[in-house]
């Protein structure tokens, strides 16, 4: 009888250990997928800021914006602000599919909406930072700050901090999410310069 008990105990320990290992691998896989998603979301926000800078240049505007049409705010009158914290989102209705009938409609559509938020809001769980799963008319699921139709809240939040030093701009993009109670984040940063030296 003791031999059976010892045998059962050893097998039970082996099974529990193997189960823990598999659970660990599964969690690790999920965490890796979240990391990858967060990396590309953070990267997308930096690309958006770069796109705005390039668009300012292309339209012969000062790269940080000026009193005339300003792509930092898509012409809504909000100027670029030193040390500002922003959320970056695709402008609703500008899902720029390469279709002939969209040529005219999309010609004047800036793809990004960059909205300034208060610095304190980036550390609080406010909905402004949340990214929603949005299915547009073409049924493509994507993540956006803008809710459209049947939007579902995702686990990710995103904000961008911009510091301007002379003719360089340090852009930090942070994506935060909660993984079973553990707060996790991915932060990417880059330096954008005014190498084209647009109008001052």
């Amino acid at each position: 009888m003791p031999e059976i008990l010892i045998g059962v105990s050893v097998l039970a320990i082996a099974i529990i250990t193997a189960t823990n290992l598999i659970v660990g691998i599964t969690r690790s896989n999920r965490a890796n997928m979240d990391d990858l998603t967060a990396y590309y979301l953070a990267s997308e926000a930096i690309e958006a800021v770069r796109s705005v800078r390039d668009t300012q240049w292309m339209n012969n505007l000062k790269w940080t914006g000026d009193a005339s049409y300003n792509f930092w705010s898509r012409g809504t009158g909000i100027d670029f602000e030193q040390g500002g914290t922003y959320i970056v989102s695709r402008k609703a209705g500008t899902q720029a599919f390469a279709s002939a009938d969209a040529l005219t409609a999309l010609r004047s559509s800036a793809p990004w909406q960059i909205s300034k938020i208060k610095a304190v809001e980036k550390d609080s769980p406010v909905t402004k930072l949340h990214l929603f799963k949005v299915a547009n008319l073409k049924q493509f699921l994507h993540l956006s700050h803008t809710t459209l139709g049947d939007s579902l809240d995702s686990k990710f939040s995103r904000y961008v901090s911009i510091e301007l030093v002379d003719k360089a701009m340090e852009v930090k993009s942070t994506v935060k999410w909660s993984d079973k109670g553990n707060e996790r984040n991915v932060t990417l940063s880059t330096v954008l310069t005014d190498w084209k030296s647009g109008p001052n």
Partner: protein
Amino acid sequence: MISIALFMIFLTTLFGAYSSLIGSQKDSNAVRVMYSGARDLFAQLSEDVRLSTIDYFNLVADKHVLQLLSKDGLKQTVYRVVDKDGGKRMEKSVSFRTDLKCPFPPGIEIIENIASNKLEIADFNFLVTPVVDPYSHDSSENKEPQLQPMVTFLAEFKSAGKFSFPLQASVSSRVYTKVDERDRINLGGDQAVDSCGI
């Protein structure tokens, strides 16, 4: 009899646990293959978009096709999401030319699947912004805002038919000049073909 019954119960439990572990490990491996394949595919596409610009002259109304033009305008790369063997694959073809005013011949180098063969692509869409060449003469004369070319990838990957993994990325071109000397509006396609002897 009691001992045999207990042993049978124990063996059944053991077998169930073992099967479950093997199944979980297979799922884990499949998920790992999915996200590593997705990461490689996105990295490859992102790099290509950064170093190229959109081939606006050949832009087609198809969200499953992306045409890129190299910085010198002599190399065209076409990514195409195709249905094959009950799934989707990412096909890449490359064409070269020697004259910026001439069209590209059919792709001379075709890679049937640039993604890992183990990667299941459920859907993959290319969103091109803007859809007219911002550096063309027509756009320059237009008073509407011009935008730096950018591509957004919206993809969904699947693993063993159980797990799905949506992934999105946006990458803008680092080419800041007009590359193609052909103009979609002002230059007749037939004229170009005739003068190039194609």
